């Protein structure tokens, strides 16, 4: 069995060799038609701030690869770039790749020369026959208008005859408005003066501020979409958990506490890692965007649970008793009496929770969700400047600052309402002071629990200073 196999393989090899030989003979027999060289690839390195686009008017590098026919050795290869294309020969490189999978590099002494749009790589001596050639030209600037750029290749064979290799195209995107703006900025003397200060250049480079804005903006929409879906999802889940935690049944109470304690006791970063790298191993395949929403919603639900629980338990016991005496059952009491009062009380804390959740979307950058930080990171990595992070910070502030203002307003309103409705242990003066601090602290603080739910209803009666510590 084994032997026949081997024999079969030998026959196959012999046949293949024969075919190759025939092919070679044929190709030599009709030299006029045979291509001496074939283009293997011709690409330009992407030069947009992110993604695969090749932009006009911006430096890029062309990599051209071609395979010479087995019998051909070359004197030179020429590439003709489209009219109006700039280039530099300083870093130009020619390499010959040999071996079965072109993994061995032979660097050949090459001189690069140019004549208008044509770049010629002349090898110091005719190369070995049948080589695989790679030419790299740096500092190539395609015309700003963009379009399909034809690259014409010709080669000179060892016998001195010139031959067309063929043409390939590189799709070049026209320069965008922002790119034109940055190009204009680059030439401005005040920009150059500004950037000559190292600190300003690293943190507030005007060119990068402009160029990273549209890129990071895409991430901004992504982050907004995540939080706008995740937060409402967390509301019913949080309410459910809060009812579980206040349940008469020990099992429900235990389950609710277990969930809340585990989720709040571990970093959201770790939860994201477990969900993104652990779940798929267990056979659960969810695309990154919905998975990110689920993780953040589940995380937020645990925090919201505590907000609702404290909010509900802060309603005076008298309210429950009054509702019951009117003949309402437990569910009716909750739905028509307690919850409406709770909503008003938890609104500021809930807004804070929204702000926190929005900021937490940045953690998803670690697992490849393309949000604000991720986009900023890619530009930082390619430019070595911190400026894109500053742009990212602006995209967070544009949401968090107005919301913080809203929290302040809500707290004020709540305090005023409370003055009219219930008894308060605070004097007017104290309340005003509390309001002042509330404004300052609302954004700064991390999550702090609401008052302990087991305390008596009297003591938890919500007063502005309670919310100010959220």
């Amino acid at each position: 069995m084994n032997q026949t196999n081997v024999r079969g393989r030998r026959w196959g090899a012999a046949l293949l060799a024969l075919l190759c030989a025939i092919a070679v003979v044929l190709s030599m027999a009709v030299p006029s038609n045979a291509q001496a060289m074939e283009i293997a690839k011709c690409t330009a390195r992407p030069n947009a701030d992110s993604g695969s686009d090749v932009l006009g008017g911006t430096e890029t590098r062309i990599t051209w690869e071609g395979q010479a026919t087995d019998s051909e050795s070359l004197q030179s290869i020429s590439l003709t770039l489209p009219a109006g294309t700039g280039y530099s020969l300083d870093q130009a490189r020619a390499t010959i790749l040999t071996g079965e999978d072109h993994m061995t590099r032979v660097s050949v002494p090459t001189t690069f020369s140019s004549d208008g749009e044509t770049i010629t790589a002349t090898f110091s001596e005719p190369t070995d026959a049948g080589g695989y050639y790679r030419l790299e030209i740096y500092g190539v600037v395609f015309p700003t208008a963009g379009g399909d750029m034809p690259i014409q290749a010709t080669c000179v064979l060892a016998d001195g005859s010139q031959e067309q290799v063929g043409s390939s195209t590189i799709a070049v995107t026209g320069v965008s408005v922002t790119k034109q703006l940055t190009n204009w900025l680059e030439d401005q003397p005040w920009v150059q003066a500004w950037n000559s200060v190292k600190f300003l250049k690293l943190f507030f480079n005007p060119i990068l501020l402009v160029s990273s804005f549209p890129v990071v903006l895409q991430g901004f929409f992504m982050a907004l979409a995540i939080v706008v879906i995740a937060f409402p999802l967390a509301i019913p889940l949080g309410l459910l958990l809060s009812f579980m935690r206040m349940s008469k049944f020990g099992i429900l109470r235990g389950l609710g506490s277990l969930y809340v304690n585990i989720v709040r006791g571990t970093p959201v970063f770790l939860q994201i890692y477990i969900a993104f790298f652990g779940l798929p191993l267990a056979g659960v395949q969810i695309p990154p965007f919905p998975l990110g929403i689920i993780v953040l919603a589940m995380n937020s639900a645990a925090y919201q649970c505590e907000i609702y629980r404290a909010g509900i338990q802060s309603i005076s016991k008298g309210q429950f008793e009054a509702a019951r005496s009117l003949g309402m059952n437990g569910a009716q009491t909750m739905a028509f009496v307690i919850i409406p009062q709770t909503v008003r009380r938890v609104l500021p804390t809930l807004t804070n929770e929204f702000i926190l959740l929005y900021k937490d979307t940045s953690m998803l950058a670690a697992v490849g969700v393309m949000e604000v930080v991720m986009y900023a990171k890619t530009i930082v990595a390619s430019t070595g400047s911190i400026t894109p992070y500053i742009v990212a910070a602006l995209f967070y502030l544009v949401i968090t600052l107005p919301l913080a203002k809203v929290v302040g307003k809500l707290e004020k309103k709540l305090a005023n309402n409370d003055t009219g409705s219930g008894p308060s242990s605070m004097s007017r003066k104290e309340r005003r002071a509390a309001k002042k601090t509330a404004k300052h602290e609302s954004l700064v603080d991390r999550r702090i629990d609401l008052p302990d739910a087991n305390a008596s209803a009297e003591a938890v009666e919500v007063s502005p200073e309670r919310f100010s510590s959220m």
Partner: protein
Amino acid sequence: MKIKKIGILVAAGVLAAALGLFGCSSSSSSSSSAQSAASSSSATTTSAGYTLQKAGTLTIATSPDFPPFENLENGQYVGLDIEIGKAVAEKLGLTPEFKTLQFDAILPAIAAGGQADCGISGFTVDPEREKTVDFSDSYYIDDQAIAVMKDSSFTSEGIDSQLNNANVTIAVQSGTSGEEYVQENYPNAKCQAYGNSTDAFAAMQAGQANAVCTNKAVVQNMLADAYSDAQIVKNVATGEEYAIAVSKDNPQLTAAIDQALKELKDDGTIDSLINEYL
């Protein structure tokens, strides 16, 4: 013994002084390094003319998630780059001190100054990167490789057209030459960047990505250790030269590192390290 040491010290001092004098005569570069030394108060200027974050210490930034070049084993930095960093520091008469930074944060940190003297983290010399930092001479040449899971439908035959497809996701490490290779050669595929190569492989195993593209030695190492259920479908002889990144404000340090690397090459240290780790 003691006398010998003093003798060496004196010799080093004389040499350093000579270098210093030499540095002063070449006007522009030395003045810029003097400026940077003055601006960051914590940095110290050595007698050899280069500045250091901490006197007597070569602070090296690295991202230890790139075995066999650098990773952490029991809290210790190990790998080829780490050994080269140590050897270079020894040649310069300094104590090496490694500092962990995310890969894509190292070059900005080196360019900004204040965190590390140099970066050794499998950096490929690249004209684009050379706009922000200086590179030493190269100490290793690497290629790119693309790996897929063995049970996937990808085959090395015609792999380029299989990968350059809108429903293919290729995981890369953010800011690496592998990322650029994917963007340039597979523009139709989705190029998904992760903070480090370990995460890129974890994502492929988890099914979040179809393939991983990164430096060949790293792929080989990953396949040999943790991901025996993956395979290489394509090697690309990109011939990337690994080098040490140094701030542009510190050309004397680059020169000193070049000298140290040359000595390490000549005495065979680098070759034996490469044989040991790769």
